[in-house]
């Protein structure tokens, strides 16, 4: 079981190249240029886009597994584990990203989705040469706290919004499945599977720790519709891994739209725009594959 505490997303790049070698056989789309110095926000946003792209790719691969006559179990398991990993991380810090984007206004459009694949494979450490420090806007006096987060990407560079809002949002708006956010040395966080045994301690922010141990239960549905919209990206039951894995074993052949249907139905009444957008995208891809 991998230790959750030490987890870096990026792979180290062998820096034997002088300057940034642009030639990349597999580069997709446009290259993003880093602004002067390393901008936390830019890095975080581009990373999160890459991560999303990787998630989409993985889901598509899993979907195609259903199509093949002979699903390769090893490959499916590895892809499913990757998806799980991404989801865990998104749940862990994806919400912070949403906060950033909502409050700071990242302004990154869909055209920025395609970035140099190298970004995802780079070690975050290597860009700075040391462990990353992220500043987190505290509350009760706008005190900035520096936090070493074990290389987990959770840049929360809050704009000039009031910290009270941040506090408020952390407190009681996580109603998308269960999320247990723990500090670096603890175990895995479940993805809607584990029952919380720890009592919810609320959003306490101890010095030196970004995440306290608060537990977010399946609480009352959206107390605030605006905040629901805010966290629409953070849907723990977004992708029903169970459905996919079960489907792989029991129903070897799913029709082209079965997967999409199961995906849609598993969310029930939760409607979020990004989910629908992705479904539409999958739909579109399916049409191309099926050739209709």
């Amino acid at each position, binding site marked *: 079981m*991998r*230790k959750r505490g*030490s*987890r*870096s*997303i*990026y*792979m*180290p*790049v*062998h820096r*034997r*190249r*002088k*300057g940034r*070698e642009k*030639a*990349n*056989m*597999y580069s997709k789309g446009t290259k993003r240029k880093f602004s002067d110095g390393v901008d936390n926000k830019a890095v975080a946003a581009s990373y999160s886009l890459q*991560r999303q792209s*990787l998630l989409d*790719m993985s889901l598509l*691969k899993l979907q195609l597994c259903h199509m093949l*006559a*002979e699903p*390769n*179990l*090893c*490959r499916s*398991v*590895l892809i*499913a*584990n*990757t998806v799980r*990993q*991404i989801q865990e991380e998104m749940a862990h810090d994806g919400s912070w990203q949403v906060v950033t984007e909502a409050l700071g206004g990242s302004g990154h459009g869909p055209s920025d989705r395609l970035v140099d*694949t*190298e970004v*995802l*494979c*780079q*070690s975050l*450490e290597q860009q700075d040469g040391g462990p990353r420090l992220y500043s987190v806007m505290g509350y009760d006096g706008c005190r900035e706290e520096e936090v070493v987060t074990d*290389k987990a990407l959770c840049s929360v560079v809050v704009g000039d919004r009031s910290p009270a809002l941040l506090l408020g949002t952390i407190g009681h708006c996580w109603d998308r499945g269960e999320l247990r956010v723990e500090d670096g040395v603890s175990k895995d966080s479940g993805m809607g599977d584990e029952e919380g045994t720890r009592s919810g301690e609320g959003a306490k922010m101890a010095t030196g720790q970004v995440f306290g141990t608060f537990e977010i239960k399946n609480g009352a549905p959206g107390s605030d519709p605006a905040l629901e919209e805010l966290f629409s990206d953070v849907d723990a039951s977004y992708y029903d*891994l*169970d459905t996919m*894995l*079960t489907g792989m*074993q029991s129903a*070897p*052949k799913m029709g082209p739209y079965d997967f999409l249907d199961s995906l849609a139905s598993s969310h029930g009444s939760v409607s979020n725009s990004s989910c629908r957008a992705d479904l539409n995208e999958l739909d579109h891809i399916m049409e191309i594959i099926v050739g209709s």
Partner: protein
Amino acid sequence: MCKADIISTVEFNYSGELLATGDKGGRVVIFQREQESKNRPHSRGEYNVYSTFQSHEPEFDYLKSLEIEEKINKIRWLPQQNAAHSLLSTNDKTIKLWKISQRDKRAEGYNLKDEDGRLRDPFRITSLRVPVLLPMDRMVEASPRRIFANAHTYHINSISVNSDHETYLSADDLRVNLWHLEITDRSFNIVDIKPANMEELTEVITAAECHPHQCNVFVYSSSKGTIRLCDMRAAALCDRQSKFFEEPEDPSSRSFFSEIISSISDVKFSHSGRYMMTRDYLSVKVWDLNMENRPVETYQVHEYLRSKLCSLYENDCIFDKFECCWNGADSAIMTGSYNNFFRMFDRNTRRDVTLEASRENSKPRAILKARKVSTGGKRKKDEISVDSLDFNKKILHTAWHPKENVIAVAATNNLYIFQDKIN
């Protein structure tokens, strides 16, 4: 290029005289080494086709509505016990034992039947004669002697003959079975990692092998980069391993692809039985069986691919399963890479070489030139840049002669055999 001709397994027999290949079309082709002869002094033991037969046919599983591929996943030779040769070949579901026998003489001059085979009229027989053996064109025939079927729900990835020469194991994604070579209607299940709830499945078996000398010991590797050594004397079901080999992860290099590239694609014991070698996506590791917490040697096969993992994930190359092999003396190891490159590592001198298996670059009896992949900014002459590598040309299967420096390299649908140069 015909897809059915893609070679899917390569294996020398115990003496090295025979070399078997299996392909995607379910065929087995066996090569035999020519004896050195005086009139052809330069052809030092060339390998020529000895026998070809269709081992497996495509099948259809009506229950699951799935086609069962006829691709030969593995071939393993049995030790030779008489004039005939025997091997085990397997596809995803069924293992077959084939006996390959040859006839190069025929008897002539029977008393009771004439040359056409018709019975002679007894009244016509006036004298007795002793039939004589006359040479004939060599005829090799392969016949299936045993069929070991219906024991695997998942795809078989490994078979391994035990050192007792009586049993063998077969492994699929979730289970390992033990068979007796004579008994086809049942097998013992010795490892089962299938979870009660398939939704909880996070790890599969990727390879398994019997120990070369201890018939009670075997190992199996997993998709999480771990190897478990089991002793069959401990329990009927070897769910609890005797030894657990895992290298601690380097936290600085962790990424979303860490698990995928740590998945072990092949595990091979050394001939001595003291070491074992594992192949994961980027490296080959040699383990001392007495030390579980880390390998004793690690060799980077194509480290320059580490920064391309995202792309390799996209085009599925990251799931390629490379094999590895030892030389007879356990002093060198070999494994394949992309662009028809294969790598050899000398364990003693720590030297390594990259060679290419391609028609353009190797004329018969020409010396192979060492290749290099340039990773720096400046590409030297004769070097190939990472971006120019052909990822469709992958060498997944290689084999080393058990005694001599002869290697067999399968490059898609071509088989290359290289030998040490003699002066």
